[in-house]
């Protein structure tokens, strides 16, 4: 079987992937194909664990600063602690060591995958491709990584190369009640043939009319194709391309009052009925295909060189309602809630009405359309041409699509040489470039005929200034139709280059390593429109900001004997600020935070590991200090009728704690496992906040001191699990785990912890505590169970020539149906400074699913 290159090209085009033009020279080959039967059960478990829901970052949370991103793909889970952290603790969005997502790196086939704008790994770009992502290697914390300097949280490296995929065909169907209802997945890998070719394909579809939460549909496709050509004994050339066009209705965070009215912690304000059908206003769409070309060259028996180039191109977007000088269409807007009524009898009536009528709790699409139908207007001086008038139905409500078009390129080359029996040297160079284009476009005019590209907030502030109100002075009063870009439109451009080197020493009793990295980061903003309010600071290229950074890390392992180890590691790095945290209001202008500087991170860890046949233990203590962090939080403020930005600097944090994991085989197939994370993550500095409004060059306040010292980092700090596994020699297993979480805190609004936030309140009074104290969430528990069975059909049907397996898996999480688990929450950034009423803009929260399951049946041959 031969596939000609032109076929491949065709496939590439079908998937919308532009292949990178750079072909690398040489590479290294590590054979990691797992042997078949010995790890069958492990694979079986992995397969199940892969399907524990990936909790992905929600945009609104991102805006509020709680970057929560846990990937089920983080680890293969051989380490009992990591296994627990990844799978058992995911209900509460546990984060390893409490670090932000930018502290974890991900590589596929040697190419770095994380985004340069915020350091996050875009897991969704390979969602649904579980079958081809099984080969992976994870390092945790400061451990030496074989193919990168690595982030201080850890590095995961996937190997999707076709010749490294198990030769088989797999067809799998799954049903679940989580984000999707059905999944169908087909994978076929050929293995390396006699002529040195290997191919691997995978495709899946995940879909649901409605997921666990009301109004959340899901429609995700995934495609993967890889080809390897072994050019000689020493060279392997690999190409992997994949893409996951996905659309799903999103779930919004909610306030207690609405959850009470709806009688449901999973109340979702994002949907409503249109013509009797459920429509979600907030639809996330994503299609950012990736192509990776990897060249693996064995220079000699001791030295190998792996070179990878990757390219990503595509749009990720999310829709939402936009409206022009009309009533807020969101059903949970605070003025629509009973608590806003002063007369208690109205409040009671309203509450009753809202409980009885689902349309009062959800978006009333039909009414929004009526408004547009009645909105006949004439727009003058269209496109800035005097006398050019357009009349018609000017939409008052529209669905807009906030999009990011990403183009990302990376080139990465790593040389690895075994210099002697005791010394391994590794070194690498890396270059990454990313351009993000941020814009909005009109998605749906909702029955109207046009929308106008003006800034309604500026219009209210400067009613008679026809320039200030323009979103784009280069085409004033532009009439918009569906598909037209409007509002803001800017690019960010980031380049990063790095060199690194690492030496590993191995002796009988002691292993040691030392690594260092030097990098250069530069970024700028490029405005594609000239904003009326900032004509001189919005269009064209901003200043370029450059940063030179260094990092070092090293470690020692003392081998007490073959089973007991102690290790100590330490690292220091300075890290360029992320674009997102540098520009204070990039939608309208190119202003950056004052005193833009690199963040500094110091981290140490000390541990003990035991690896005996019947007992595995690892215990690690860690201490990490972050200095000079920056962040920008943005939200809509009614009073200013505008977006307000909090630019925070001097963020300092300490993350310390103990990780513990153990696994013991107690009797025949029975084993027990336990893991614990006992952490203390807190802010150790007073942050500095500068507050700006999108529509004004005036600073609302400058260098406000945020009394944030000793506040908790809002991520679960304590988590425990205890479980029992049974593995039958008859190829089935059953495992049960009980998990417990404590010391979880809400994300806090920094401006409440300022002098203005408490002025007029008596220090120590109840009202003062209401404003200042950080909310601690209730401790929670869950019970999970997994089971699986693998039937080797050849045993029953002797006539079958090929080994054929029928594999069943079922996993049930949160069996006790605990529906009160807050999986994420934040204080609204808007605060009632006048009356200091913390309940006026109450906390918003997300909840972990109640009992949920995933069951699959798969055929492998």
């Amino acid at each position, binding site marked *: 079987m031969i596939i000609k290159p032109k076929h491949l090209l065709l496939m590439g085009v079908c998937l919308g992937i532009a292949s990178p033009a750079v072909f690398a020279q040489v590479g290294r080959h590590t054979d990691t194909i797992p042997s078949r039967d010995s790890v069958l059960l492990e694979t079986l478990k992995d397969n199940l664990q892969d399907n524990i829901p990936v909790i992905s970052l929600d945009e609104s949370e991102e805006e509020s600063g709680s970057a929560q991103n846990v990937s089920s793909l983080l680890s293969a889970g051989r380490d009992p602690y990591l296994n627990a952290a990844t799978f058992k603790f995911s209900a509460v969005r546990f984060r390893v060591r409490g670090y932000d997502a930018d502290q974890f790196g991900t590589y596929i086939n040697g190419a770095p995958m994380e985004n340069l704008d915020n350091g996050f790994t875009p897991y969704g770009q390979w969602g649904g491709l579980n079958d081809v992502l099984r080969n992976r290697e994870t390092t945790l914390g400061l451990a030496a990584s074989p193919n990168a300097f690595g982030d201080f949280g850890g590095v995961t490296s996937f190997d999707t190369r076709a010749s490294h995929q198990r030769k088989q065909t797999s067809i799998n169907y799954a049903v679940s009640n989580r984000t999707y209802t059905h999944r*169908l997945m087909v994978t076929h890998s050929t293995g390396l043939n006699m002529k040195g070719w290997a191919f691997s394909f995978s495709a899946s579809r995940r879909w649901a009319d409605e997921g666990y939460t009301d109004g959340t549909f899901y429609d995700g496709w995934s495609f993967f194709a890889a080809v390897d050509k072994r050019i000689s004994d020493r060279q392997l050339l690999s190409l992997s391309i994949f893409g996951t066009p996905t659309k799903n209705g999103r779930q919004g965070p909610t306030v207690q009052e609405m959850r009470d009215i709806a009688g449901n912690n999973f109340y979702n304000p994002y949907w409503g009925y249109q013509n009797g059908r459920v429509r979600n206003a907030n639809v996330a769409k994503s299609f950012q295909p990736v192509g990776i070309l990897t060249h693996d060259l064995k220079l000699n028996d001791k030295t190998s060189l792996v070179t990878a180039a990757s390219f990503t191109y595509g749009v990720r977007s999310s829709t939402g309602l936009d409206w022009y000088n009309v009533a807020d269409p969101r059903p949970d807007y605070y003025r629509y809630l009973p608590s806003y009524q002063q007369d208690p009898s*109205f409040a009671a009536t309203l509450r009753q009405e809202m409980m009885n009528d689902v349309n009062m709790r959800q978006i009333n699409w039909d009414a929004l359309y009526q408004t547009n139908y009645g909105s006949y207007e004439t727009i003058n001086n269209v496109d800035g041409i005097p006398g050019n008038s357009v009349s018609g139905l000017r939409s008052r409500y529209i669905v807009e699509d906030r999009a990011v078009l990403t183009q990302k390129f990376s080139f990465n080359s790593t040389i690895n040489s075994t210099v002697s029996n005791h010394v391994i040297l590794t070194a690498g160079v890396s270059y990454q470039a990313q351009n993000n284009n941020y814009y909005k476009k009109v998605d*749906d005019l909702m029955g109207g005929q046009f929308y106008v590209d003006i800034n309604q907030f500026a219009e209210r502030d400067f009613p008679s200034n026809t320039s200030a109100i323009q979103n784009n002075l280069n085409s004033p009063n532009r009439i918009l139709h569906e598909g037209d870009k409007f509002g803001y439109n800017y690019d960010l451009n980031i380049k990063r280059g790095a060199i690194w080197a690492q030496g590993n020493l191995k002796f009988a009793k002691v292993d040691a390593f030392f690594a260092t990295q030097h990098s250069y980061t530069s970024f700028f903003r490029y405005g594609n429109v000239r904003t009326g309010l900032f004509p001189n600071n919005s269009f064209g290229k901003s200043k370029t900001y450059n940063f030179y950074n260094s990092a070092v890390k090293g470690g020692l392992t003392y081998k007490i004997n073959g089973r007991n180890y102690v290790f100590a590691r330490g690292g220091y790095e300075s890290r360029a600020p992320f674009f997102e945290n540098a520009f204070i209001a990039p939608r309208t202008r190119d202003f950056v935070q004052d005193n833009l500087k690199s963040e500094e991170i110091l981290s140490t860890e000390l541990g003990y590991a035991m690896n005996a046949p019947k007992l595995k233990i690892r215990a690690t203590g860690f201490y990490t200090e972050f200095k000079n962090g920056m962040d920008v939080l943005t939200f809509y403020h009614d009073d200013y009728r505008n977006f307000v930005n909090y630019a925070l600097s001097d963020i300092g944090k300490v993350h310390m704690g103990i990780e513990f994991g153990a696994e013991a085989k107690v009797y025949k197939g029975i084993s027990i496992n336990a893991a614990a994370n006992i952490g203390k993550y807190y802010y150790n500095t007073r942050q500095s906040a500068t507050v700006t409004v999108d529509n004004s060059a005036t600073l609302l306040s400058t260098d406000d001191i945020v009394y944030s010292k000793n506040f908790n980092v809002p991520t679960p700090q304590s988590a425990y699990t205890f479980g029992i596994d049974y593995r039958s020699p008859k190829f089935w297993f059953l495992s049960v785990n009980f998990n417990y979480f404590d010391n979880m805190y809400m994300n806090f609004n920094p401006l409440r912890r300022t002098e203005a936030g408490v002025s007029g309140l008596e220090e120590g009074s109840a009202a003062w505590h209401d404003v200042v104290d950080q909310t601690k969430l209730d401790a929670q528990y869950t019970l999970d169970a997994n089971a699986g069975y693998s039937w080797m059909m050849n045993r029953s049907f002797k006539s079958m020539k090929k080994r054929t397996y029928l594999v069943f898996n079922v996993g049930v999480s949160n069996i006790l149906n605990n529906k009160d688990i807050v999986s994420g929450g934040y204080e609204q950034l808007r605060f009632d400074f006048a009356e200091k009423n913390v309940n006026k803009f109450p906390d918003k929260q997300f909840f972990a699913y109640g009992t949920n399951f995933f069951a699959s049946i798969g055929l492998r041959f």
Partner: protein
Amino acid sequence: MNKLTRFLTVVSLIASVGTFTACKKTFDNPPGASDPGIVANTTIKALKALHTTPGAYDVISSDLIISGVVVADDKSGNLYKQLFIQDSTGGLQVLLDAASLFGTYPVGRRIYIKCKDLCISDYNGTMELGVKALVDGSPSVEGIPSGLISKYVIGGSLNNPVVPIVVNQSDLGTNMQDKYLGSLIQLNNYEFGDTTLTFADTSVYKSTVNRDIKNCNGQTIIIRNSAYANFAGRKVPGGNGNVVAIYTTFGTTKQLLLRNADDVQFTGARCNIFEEYFTSLTSADNNQEFGFAGWTNVAPNSTAKWKNTVFGSTGRAVKVTAFGTSVALDTAWLITPAIALPAGATPKFSFSTAYQFALGPTTLHAFISTNYTAGADPNGATWTQLTTDANIAGNTATNNSGTWSSTVNTGLIDLTSYAGQTVYIAFKYMGGTSPVRTTNFQVDDVRITKQ
């Protein structure tokens, strides 16, 4: 190749499981607005008749349904959380506790209101329909809470004709049941009294203000404007014409509410050919030399020029005095800009004067000239005296009181013989030391009417 074919077949099978369309318009547009199957069982007039005691809160206990067309909404921001609806029997203010009502209830939309449990009351004589609420223990009528609006107010068809009722000011009564109260009316041939003002207060205080308009018969009525109206900062139009507005009262004061600035179509010629009330003077101008554009202010043989005077909250005029002069005959001229008197008109001239420290025989007289050149020495032109001492009390008064006299108008002085010509009018003050003539004069309300 077989395997690959098989594989590709399976993949295409999956692909056809669902229709993966490019994500456009899977939702129908809902149908447009139309009148619901509701029938009004009473009229606005009959509903208003239920409220007879001013200030009472009449909660409606029966299933009354009214229907009306929205004649005024809050689009411009001049109205806030209120609409006016009207049927053939009258108009009514409806209070709804929500902003941007025009989105749902624009002008021209027919709406139906289920009045049971709502409350009809009045705010100083203007009736309003809302809900009875207890705010801090005392009853009041408030807007229907936003979440409950749709339970009481049902929207019907859009774009129904909205035609104001053309009335005379004298038709408008201030009785609470007056048929025009709350209705959209039109008054013809009005103009703003003071054309130097903006529609409303644009200062940070954002107070609501009254602006007077009047017709050529001298009848005035108030237009009441909110500082939150999007036309608040716009200058009022200077001409004369028709105004469309909602008629309301505040006690016995008649007030008009505009929906937007286009409701005022004052583009025609004003009642008066010329008028100057000096209202654009500010307190900073007080005692400064008068210097309006086009006017000539000269004192050829002294320094006693005309000055601005600003007193009280509305007192604006010009004044002159020869007090302290060392000149025997001290003359101060104040001359208007050129005024074109239309041919065929029967123009009448008038102005007001007041005096202080009267020491006759100081004289102030008005003169007219057809050959003067603006800014030139007035002595080079021919002037004809228009006034007599009978017109100007200060010319003969001798009471030497420090209190300003009351302002007296000259009465109409006929200028018909000048129709068709361009004229200048001069106020010539003559004081001096010999004899001592230093009476202080004020001049205001300079006006030439068409007839």
